[in-house]
């Protein structure tokens, strides 16, 4: 077992555990913090996959920006305490448990554990570290994926305007 493998197990356990806390804890603030932790783990996993740029983005955007936004709203709305209503009925839990188990079982039996890439990608010969670099991602993003990138820009504009429209205070 190499170091990378060990890192994977630790990070995987961290991701799952923190995420599990997020979906079970009743305190929103705690949830946000655990989610950030989970995202850090995930960023680590990206590193083990040689996607350094993505790992950085994961930390900066997700953990840094998005989660702060969440936290901000929680604080704005004064929800920083455990929420009494946030309990689901046992029946629902059983149903969800069954469905969730079924879902995981379906995916796992669908061949995820044995997955081997059937197709060799066009840049398979380029070292993985290079592929995960900022340069590489940028080179692809601004060429082939130019149009989606621009569309994403529009999307962000729209989200901005939309958020303003929705959350603006009444006159």
């Amino acid at each position, binding site marked *: 077992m190499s170091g990378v493998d060990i890192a994977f197990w630790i990070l995987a356990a961290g991701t799952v555990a923190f995420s599990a806390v997020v979906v079970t804890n009743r305190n929103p603030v705690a949830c946000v913090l655990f989610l950030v932790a989970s995202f850090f783990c995930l960023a680590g996993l990206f590193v083990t996959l040689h996607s350094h740029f993505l790992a950085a983005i994961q930390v900066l955007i997700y953990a840094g920006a998005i989660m702060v936004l969440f936290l901000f709203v929680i604080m704005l709305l004064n929800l920083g305490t455990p929420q009494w209503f946030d309990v689901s009925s046992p029946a629902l839990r059983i149903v969800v448990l069954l469905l969730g188990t079924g879902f995981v079982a379906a995916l796992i039996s669908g061949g995820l554990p044995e997955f081997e890439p059937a197709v060799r990608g066009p840049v398979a010969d380029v070292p993985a570290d290079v592929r995960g670099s900022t340069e*590489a991602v940028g080179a692809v993003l601004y060429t082939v994926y130019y149009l989606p990138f621009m569309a994403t820009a529009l999307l962000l504009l729209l989200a901005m305007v939309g958020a303003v429209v929705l959350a603006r205070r009444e006159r």
Partner: protein
Amino acid sequence: MNPELQPLLDVYRVARPSLAAILPVLLIAGFAIVVLLADLFELGTTRGPAEGEEGTPIMAPYLALVGTALGLGATLWQAVRLETLGGSYFNGMLVIDGFGLFLATVILAGTLLTLLLTVGYCRRENIALAEYYHLILLSAAGMLLLAQSTNLVMIFVALELMSLGVYVLTGFHRRRLRSVEGALKYFILGAFSTGFLVYGIAFVYGASGTMDLARLPAALGVGPPPLLLLAGVGLLVVGFGFKVALVPFHMWSPDVYEAAPPPVTGFMATAVKAAAFAAFARLLMATSDPLAGQWVPVLWVLAVLTMFVGNVAAIRQDDIKRMLAYSSIAHAGYLAVALIAASGLGDAAFLYYLAVYTLMTLGAFGVVVAVGEKGMENTSIERDYAGLGYRHPLLAVAMALFMFSLTGIPPTAGFFGKFAIFSAAVDAGYVSLAFLMVIASAISAYYYLKVVVAMYMRAAEPRAVPNRMYAMAGVALFVTALGVVALGVFPGGWLDLARASADGLHRVAGIR
């Protein structure tokens, strides 16, 4: 620069960027920004009417109309020059083909009609905000991209662009609880389904190694499909099924349709649905070679469920928007039937019906808008539509026409559309599916008729305030009504067009 990067740069090169190909999207998106800027600098506007007054016109609606009209013009121009313009652009992010152009036309026409309805509505409701038009235009841009792309990355972004705009539009009446509740529900479910969509994209990508649907058949090669691909397609069916409101992924739509401002509801029911269906159709066609045997049974069940749940649930509705929501669920079922039969006549029937559906549904929502009054949507069939035939004869005639068209009574377009779908289903050998569709349509007659009954056969309560009809909404209603009749009486040319357009779908999928 890292020299090891060079092979990568050699592979990822820009291919066929073209202003001509992207022109409609550019126009729409550009005008969306212009609308916002014009508002920002208060160009030609006097904003902020006092409470209770009717909103004063701003420039935004006209800019939006011009933008959409230009976009539509550009699309038509592309259609005219399809021979030379046709093909794949921006590394397959944008595809100019008959199918996409047909749908783009439908989407833009739907947008245009929505805008026509919106202008008066916004004035009446005192929500003369430029953001409204901005959101509609950006959504429309997303739809265009969605309908004209074969790349899953692009499809995903376009879908989100479209959806986010509609989420916000749903909640536009943020002072109304219903509006916000609708937005919340739409958003939660929409984001949830996005998760599945992304996961599905990931699986398809993992199984095939490509994000481009056009290259999918080639990438998959022959042999039994990997299970991962099946799972991926299944998840994509879920994602798109949500957008087009197939049962059991439909549950957002009645609530959201009821919540949204009526013009937006019309927009959602038509343009949004058309765009989502476009991508759905491309996905299914692309995978039909190895997978038709797998997705047809699933879609079969979904279509039947959708037709029946939609029609049966609509029976009880008194709120016309909710009723139309269930109705549009049912129509999604009919369209799914056409998709199932797409190997034969289904593709043409699909396009034709989508166009017809857009006309009649938008027309119906146009009437819904017109029946509303300031601050009151007047959506109760029993109460607000009673006696409409005598209060507003023209409005009621138009509504009756749309209802009969939705029912499928000749000689309206809705009838011929259903006939085309029946034909497609029978032709492809799905007689039992056609039969179930027949039964479902029979059920639907009841609730459509209910509206007609209310308008003509129930005594009207006297109303103090006569509804005001806005000229632009009148134009929209006239156009839709005319279209519903014209496409019904002389469907031949349209059908030919639909058939020719549908060709592109298969060419992309590599079938024909």
